[in-house]
């Protein structure tokens, strides 16, 4: 654990904050699973309020990860969003990074769980990789 801590801290610090935020991650996950989705679907799927969803989508658009398109359908504005190529790349990179962090942190997490479960008493055994 002590040798791994700086690596883990470094890994956590380098996480893409735009993607990592749960609301934005949910939006990106939905858009990565389809070609295009409208605002109502994103609202339903993520459970975000309209205002919050709008803010998060604008941030993603500003970051160059998604495309937002507004069209008129039956005299109503239909807002749809799709994931850009760069967005898909950012999401894939994010999950790769999370996987490697999970691998690095697994021994320490196991140790923490063991301590919490009362299986380890007294001195905490050093983590082994």
């Amino acid at each position: 654990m002590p040798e791994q801590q700086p690596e883990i801290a470094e890994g956590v610090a380098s996480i893409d904050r735009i993607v990592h935020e749960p609301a934005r991650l949910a939006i990106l996950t939905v858009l990565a699973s389809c070609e295009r989705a409208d605002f109502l679907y994103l609202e339903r799927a993520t459970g975000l309020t309209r205002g919050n969803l709008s803010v998060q989508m604008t941030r993603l658009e500003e970051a160059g990860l998604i495309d937002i398109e507004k069209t008129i359908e039956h005299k109503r504005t239909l807002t749809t969003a799709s994931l850009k190529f760069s967005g898909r790349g950012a999401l894939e990179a994010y999950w790769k990074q999370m996987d490697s962090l999970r691998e690095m942190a697994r021994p320490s997490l196991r140790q923490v769980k063991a301590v919490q479960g009362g299986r380890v008493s007294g001195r905490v055994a050093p983590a082994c990789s």
Partner: protein
Amino acid sequence: MESVLEGSSYNGELQYVTQHFRELQGLQMVPFWMTAIVLSLLEYAHAVTRWQAVTLFLSLVALSIVLAAFVGRWYRRHYGFVAQREERLPSQLISITRTDQRIPKERSKWFVLSLFFVFALMFFPLLLHSYRNYSNFGLLTLIFFVLPKTSLDYARSTSLRRRQILAIGCGVALIIIQIFYDLGHLDRWAFVAASASVLMVGSLYDHWLLKRLLGGPLLEGHHA
């Protein structure tokens, strides 16, 4: 830290509901299953003549198509719109009506094919008594409506696992019904009604699942 690093079943559910959005619109299929059940029960009870049955069949199928389109519009008004990727075509067979403007030609062909196989090829021979081999009905419903639901990658979510288990259960039930029919323990109309009832259970679960996955505020309140 742990919560950050743990993989989330929520993301899996989001992926699943988005990828299967149309096939989870189970209420679209209910009018068709109801048609099969009503018609079968009327025939079983000898309540209608042959030509009355044919007329009733055509009317009920037409009504089902209209109802399915109406239900499709209701789904769109309540849950929005998702344009799905074309590579998932075979598992999209379940959703046979689409209300959006972007109907790909390939999917329309599947729609016509599935409708043709399940209703025309199966029901007309049954109604006209000109064909004794009905085993295709069970096989086709199994291929078109049950098998796509049994493939599932997101085993972490209980609701999704339940859908898979239910689909397997429906598949087994359809096979058992088929065997009973082939062995002569079941009247052909009872066979059709039983098969349609099993399929309707699957469709109703799909609707419930869609409502559950798209119904609640999962993120709001935790993260603004």
